[in-house]
């Protein structure tokens, strides 16, 4: 089995549009959450959301390429060009090597709704235009990135709810570990628009707050009352250690464990056993003891039941080690399909810069989380190994373990 390393990362998120901006936000505990009046006017119960500017791609991509790229694809593209640049991968590399792409995405709501609206009005399918189909399919990101960068390796999308991004990294890790691929672009992206999140808001699980939107996402706090939707794009370049060394690539970290599980239970309410097994499976895959982990990036979205059950699961696995834990969703909100990838990047940034980002808004810790070592304020600390949790609807769970090289 081969070693799998990360040679490039790129991020386009509500707390920063590149790695440097995100590093500053994480260190300073800066929130990217706003209150969007347009959502309230549209019938949302909560107007809270993470927000990013839509990137201007006219100078970067041709008309044909832009026409096929929906909102989530545009975020993914921005993250990917940063990741490739950091990995020192140029276009010629794709001609000479079989590079793949596995990306997490689980909706293209805006593209679907917009083209359907045209169809309803015009009563003519041709008038939705040539790009509509390529923007509307769930595999929109992998089909577009593989076309733009002329990729010739593995090429598919992972749809696994809010664990999509994490599983994409896990799948890429396995394909490289087993020798089937040398280099894979992985990640996750999430559209941010009122068309994408209405049905989620309708479940009554989004946070509401009087006053400062930055206070709304408060994982593990007693006063938490729901998650804040968010989005953007996050890309990681995975590569075999041999390939990275051969081309003199920067080696940012190593993936040493991937654990997954399914709850086998309720469609939306998480349990304790499933996440706990995913974490244990990741530790088993990495062949390390829980005490070796220096930091846990929790999935914790700021929902009452979800955070409590994750706290219990983390306590089961890491209780004896008293491992530092934080949820960066306190700053970013829940980046959904993107979260599993972005949070690995957040953890990597912390590991590279020796700090644990704070779980902001934790004023009165809840009963289950009180047993954990939750980091409320930025902690300057050396991290050699960390674990990142991601869970999703349907009870899909993923845990990844990353190590400093």
């Amino acid at each position: 089995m081969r070693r799998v390393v990360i040679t490039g990362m790129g991020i386009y998120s509500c707390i920063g549009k590149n790695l440097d901006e995100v590093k500053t936000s994480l260190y300073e505990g800066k929130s990217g959450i706003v209150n969007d009046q347009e959502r309230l006017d549209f019938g949302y119960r909560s107007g809270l959301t993470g927000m990013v500017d839509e990137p201007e791609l006219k100078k970067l991509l041709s008309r044909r390429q832009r026409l096929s790229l929906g909102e989530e694809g545009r975020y993914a593209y921005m993250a990917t060009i940063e990741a490739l640049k950091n990995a020192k991968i140029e276009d010629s590399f794709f001609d000479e090597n079989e590079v793949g792409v596995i990306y997490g995405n689980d909706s293209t709501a805006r593209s679907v709704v917009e083209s359907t609206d045209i169809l309803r009005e015009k009563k003519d399918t041709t008038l939705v235009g040539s790009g509509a189909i390529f923007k509307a399919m769930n595999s929109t990101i992998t089909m577009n990135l593989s076309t733009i960068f002329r990729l010739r390796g593995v090429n598919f999308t992972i749809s696994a709810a809010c664990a999509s991004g994490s599983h994409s990294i896990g799948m890429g890790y396995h394909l490289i570990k087993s020798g089937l691929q040398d280099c894979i672009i992985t990640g996750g992206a999430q559209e941010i628009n009122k068309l994408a999140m209405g049905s989620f808001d309708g479940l009554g699980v989004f946070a509401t707050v009087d006053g400062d939107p930055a206070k709304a996402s408060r994982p593990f706090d007693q006063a938490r009352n729901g998650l804040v939707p968010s989005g953007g794009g996050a890309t990681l370049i995975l590569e075999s250690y041999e390939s990275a060394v051969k081309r003199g690539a920067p080696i940012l970290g190593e993936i040493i464990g991937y654990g997954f599980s399914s709850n086998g239970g309720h469609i939306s309410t998480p349990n304790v056993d499933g996440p706990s097994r995913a974490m244990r499976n990741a530790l088993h895959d990495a062949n390390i003891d829980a005490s070796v982990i220096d930091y846990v990036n929790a999935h914790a979205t700021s929902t009452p039941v979800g955070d409590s059950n994750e706290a219990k699961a983390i306590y089961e696995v890491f209780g004896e080690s008293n491992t530092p834990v934080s949820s960066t969703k306190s700053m970013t909100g829940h980046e959904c399909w993107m979260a599993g990838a972005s949070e690995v990047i957040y953890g990597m940034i912390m590991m590279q810069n020796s700090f644990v980002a704070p779980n902001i808004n934790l004023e009165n810790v809840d009963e289950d989380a009180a047993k954990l070592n939750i980091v409320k304020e930025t902690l300057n600390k050396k991290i050699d190994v960390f674990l990142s949790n991601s869970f999703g609807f349907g009870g899909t769970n993923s845990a990844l373990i990353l190590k400093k090289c």
Partner: protein
Amino acid sequence: MVMTKEDIIQKIDDFLIDEFEVEEEDIAADANLKDTLGLDSLDFVDLVVAVESNFGVKLVGEDFVNVTTLQNFYDLIERKLH
């Protein structure tokens, strides 16, 4: 008001340059839509969209059977409008 031939040509040239990002210097009556202007099969779908929004005329695939050059395209739209 009936559009003149010149108006039609101007409007087509404008959306080819603005929306389809065709190089202005490539615009010529005898320009081949595929070889010179670089339009592919997917672009022909978007030509239908552009014609509908600019002229209020709905084209179908068969309309393009004998359309090879930009002049053929100008003529097609003129026939549809008049």
